[in-house]
Structure formats: structure tokens, C-alpha cells
């Protein structure tokens, strides 16, 4: 069950900040602990930047969800960019095509309770993460 949902566009660097701030305010509202808040905001920042840089922009949905007994925050990032040809490799730390540190995908997976990624060459990428309470 989705208790609250905020949809955001990611088309400029400032939008990454908006994603972080929205994630923070909904994480607080969902009752996540400070450490869980910090983890999901950090993951959101990495994935929003990926959407902007690798996906050429896209959308983020931030949701407070209850899937009893789990309750927390779920984030969905979608772009219609070039897609990721080699997902396995993209998940590895240190692998980067954007000139970054290559920690974005692997790092966000470690910071999340749940992590799903779908990507099709030429069609885009969709990443869903969740951080549950407790």
C-alpha cells in the first residue's frame, strides 16, 4: 500500500538536490531512523545522478509504502536513455563510464534493503530501491 507518493523530474543538477531533499522529508515522515535516512538519501543521490548523467534525465518517484510487516520508503528511478549493456559489470565497484568513482550502483544496492534494476539497450533503465524500518 502506498501511503504517500511524490513524483519528480530529473533534468538538471539542481534536481538531484531536490530528490535528496524530498527523500529526506519522506524518510522522516515514514519514521526511518537517522542511519536509515542517511543511507536511503545517499543511495537516492547516487541513483538520481545516474539518471541525469547516464540516462540523459528522467524521473524519480518517492513513496512511503506499507507492505505488512514491512514499512518504509521506496524509490523508483526511470530514464529513457541508452540503457546499460552489461548490468553485471555496471554493478561492480570501480566500473564507470561517466568519469566517476563507479560506486553508484553497487553502493546504492548496499545501502538499500531491496534493490531491483532493469535495463534494455536503447530503451532505458529503471531502478527500484527500498529501505525498510527496523
Amino acid at each position, binding site marked *: 500500500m502506498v501511503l504517500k507518493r511524490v513524483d519528480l523530474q530529473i533534468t538538471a543538477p539542481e534536481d538531484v538536490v531536490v530528490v535528496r531533499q524530498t527523500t529526506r522529508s519522506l524518510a522522516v515522515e515514514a519514521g526511518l531512523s537517522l542511519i536509515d535516512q542517511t543511507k536511503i538519501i545517499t543511495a537516492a543521490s547516487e541513483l538520481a545522478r545516474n539518471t541525469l548523467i547516464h540516462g540523459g534525465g528522467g524521473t524519480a518517484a518517492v513513496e512511503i509504502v506499507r507492505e505488512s510487516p514491512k514499512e518504509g520508503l521506496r524509490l523508483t528511478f526511470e530514464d529513457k536513455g541508452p540503457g546499460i549493456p552489461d548490468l553485471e559489470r555496471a554493478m561492480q*565497484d570501480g566500473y564507470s563510464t561517466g568519469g*566517476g568513482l563507479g560506486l553508484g550502483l553497487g553502493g546504492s544496492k548496499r*545501502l538499500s534493503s531491496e534493490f531491483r534494476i532493469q535495463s534494455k539497450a536503447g530503451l532505458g533503465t529503471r531502478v527500484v530501491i527500498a529501505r525498510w524500518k527496523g
Partner: protein
Amino acid sequence: MTIEKGVEVMDRIPILKMGSFLLVTIQVDMHDQLALALQDDLTERIVRDRATGVLIDISALDIVDSFIGRMLGNIASIARILDAETVVVGMQPSVAITLVELGLSLPGIRTALNIDRGMELLRAANSGVAAGDGFEES
């Protein structure tokens, strides 16, 4: 400072000079270009002000992601080449835990719990150079 979509958009992070040290307190949620601008500005100021130390206070940051982490590392590396020490102070415990889990251990970055301890570190590093032969073990 202008307001865009409810976000404070600063063009620059202010850099203060205290003796031979530069002091930066990051108090806004920086977008990537702002972080890059800070890196450039600090590089320029280290040379222009002949700074021997840089103190970066991140106590107001509630996250440090890989981009900010990389910027802090870059500043420390550039400063070292320009003969200045960098100390990052005030990292929140939840930020430290998250950084390590993210996979970023900030190698080469000196840290201190607060500004006082950070200043002590910089002064100690500074007096070591003044008293010695200019070479320093790191």
C-alpha cells in the same frame, strides 16, 4: 543567492582566511557544479593566499555521496601538491557509517572531530614544517 524550485541555489561556497589557513563551512546541500566550483576556488585561494592549511567543516552535511567524497579527496590531493594540509572536520557518525557502506573510505583525507581539533592538527603540521627541513612524513 536565488531561489529556484524551492532550492537555495548558491553560486559559490564562501572561503574564509584565518592566518595562513583557509576555512570552509559547507552549510548548503551542494549540487555537483557547486562542489566543483568549491574545488576550483580553494585551489586558486591556496596559491593566492599562500595558505598552508585548509579546514573543511562538514558538520552541517547530513549526507556525503560519492561525488562529494571525490571532491574532498581531490581537494586534499591538490592541496598536498601545493604544500598545504587539508583537514575535514565534523563528519556526523551516520554519514561515516554510510560512506563506508557506500564503498568510500576517503583515503588520504585527514579528519578531526571538530574545528578545534582540526585547527590543532593544522598548527601541528605547520610547526613541523617550520621547525624541520621542510620535509614531512605523511
